[in-house]
């Protein structure tokens, strides 16, 4: 594919620290290759800033291949930018036109306080995982794989849920700032498989109460999350979480 170049104006959020007051800053960028990724465009901008003696924009990234969940920002009002099922690192500049103004903001939510510029603290998601996103298995010698039977369609659904990379875009985009799609995906992934079923009920209750403690909102079934999720996770997993939580609250068997 032939690569051309575009000139753009980047309007980007600048915030010095968690308690500092932030504001937008404009930068005109020339000759950005449409073949470059969004993060590469930010790299180019940062290099130019550094050369001018200005502090570069801080942003999170790691794998740059859409699997780690580190990257993420809200681009022109959409978490991870305009392309469906695409992380910010996999977004390419060919999605933009010459002369475009691109507005870049950090993920915003009370549960995701800004650390600096575009970097937000998403450790709340780690705490939610610690509250129940695991299976307690005593390790021993592996048993024969065929001794645990899992129908193909169940395995498929569990794999769909397991595709969640924990980026937090669902909570950032949610009108109520609820990471329900994230929790729903984690709960589904484990509740669908035999190894995770034993702890399914307590897991749902513990993860949801951890979510509440971390200042997130309540799901209003707005469905924005499934529309921004870079892994295309469906709210059907939120429905499964709702069922697991009902069972966990009302039929504990304890």
């Amino acid at each position, binding site marked *: 594919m032939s690569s051309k170049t575009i000139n753009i104006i980047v*309007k980007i959020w600048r915030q010095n620290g968690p308690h500092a007051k*932030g504001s*937008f800053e404009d930068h005109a960028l020339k000759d950005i290759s449409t073949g470059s990724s969004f993060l590469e465009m930010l790299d180019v901008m940062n290099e130019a800033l550094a050369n001018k003696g200005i502090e570069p924009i801080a942003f999170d990234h790691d794998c740059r291949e859409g699997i780690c969940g580190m990257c993420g920002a*809200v681009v*022109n*009002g*959409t*978490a991870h930018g305009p392309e469906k099922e695409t992380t910010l690192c996999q977004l390419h500049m060919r999605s933009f036109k010459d002369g475009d103004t691109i*507005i870049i*903001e950090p993920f*915003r*939510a*009370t*549960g995701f306080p800004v650390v600096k510029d575009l970097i937000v603290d998403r450790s709340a998601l780690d705490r939610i995982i610690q509250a129940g996103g695991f299976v307690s298995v005593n390790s021993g010698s592996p048993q024969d794989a065929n001794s645990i039977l899992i129908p193909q369609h169940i395995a498929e659904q569990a794999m769909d849920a397991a595709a969640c990379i924990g980026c937090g875009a669902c909570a950032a*985009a949610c*009108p*109520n*700032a*609820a990471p329900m799609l994230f929790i729903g995906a984690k709960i589904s992934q484990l509740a669908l498989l035999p190894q995770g079923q034993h702890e399914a009920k307590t897991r749902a209750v513990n993860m*949801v*109460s951890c*979510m*509440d403690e971390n*200042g*997130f*909102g*309540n*799901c*209003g*079934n*707005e*469905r*924005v*999350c*499934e*529309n*921004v999720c870079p892994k295309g996770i469906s*709210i*059907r997993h*939120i*429905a*499964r*979480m*709702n*069922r697991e*939580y*009902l069972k966990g*609250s*009302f039929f*504990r068997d304890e």
Partner: protein
Amino acid sequence: MSWFIQTCRSSLGKKYIMALTGFLLGGFLLVHTIGNSTIFWGREAFNAYAHHLHSLGIFVPIFEIGLYSIFFIHVITGVLLWLQNRKARGPQKYEVQTNPGGRTWGSQTMIYTGATIFVFILIHLANFHFVEKTEVLTISDIVTKVLNNPGFTLIYIIGMSVLALHISHGFWSLLQTFGINDPQYNAPIRVVTWAVAAIMITVFVLITLLLVVSQNQLLG
């Protein structure tokens, strides 16, 4: 009991409360629609229906207290959720507000349509419930009088439209909250939930319009 309180206070618990009370209020609305349709058969039928309801005696106040409680639980929980969600969203709004998909008119306006319906129901109760009904001035006379006032005609039509918007999201949403979501049924569920809302509201609007065009329907 502590588990019960804990569940009710959690975010999901509050959603279950909204869903359950919403479902019960919807059920009441359905019965109310069916009952009110007797108006299409004229004054006698409508008055007879009202009379029949009142002859239930002690069950009437018991039912009313139950209904008011469900209603207030729905309203209070809804306001609590709204406040919590505003807080969770944080003071700094996004510079660009978009809808990447998913949100509907109904889902975006739940708290506002809810507040409007609240005011509408107060007006509605003042019109028909807390008024003196006598042998001479029956419920059908009152209904005809109120709905023939152009101001009230408008208020009732607006009230009904707003209610339709509220239910267009609410009915589907409560099913999702109870975990009823399966690709096999999702399309029919969406259609049925919209259709139920549309049918109920159409009946109410038709009643209002009927009384505007044909005053004699209830004067008989």
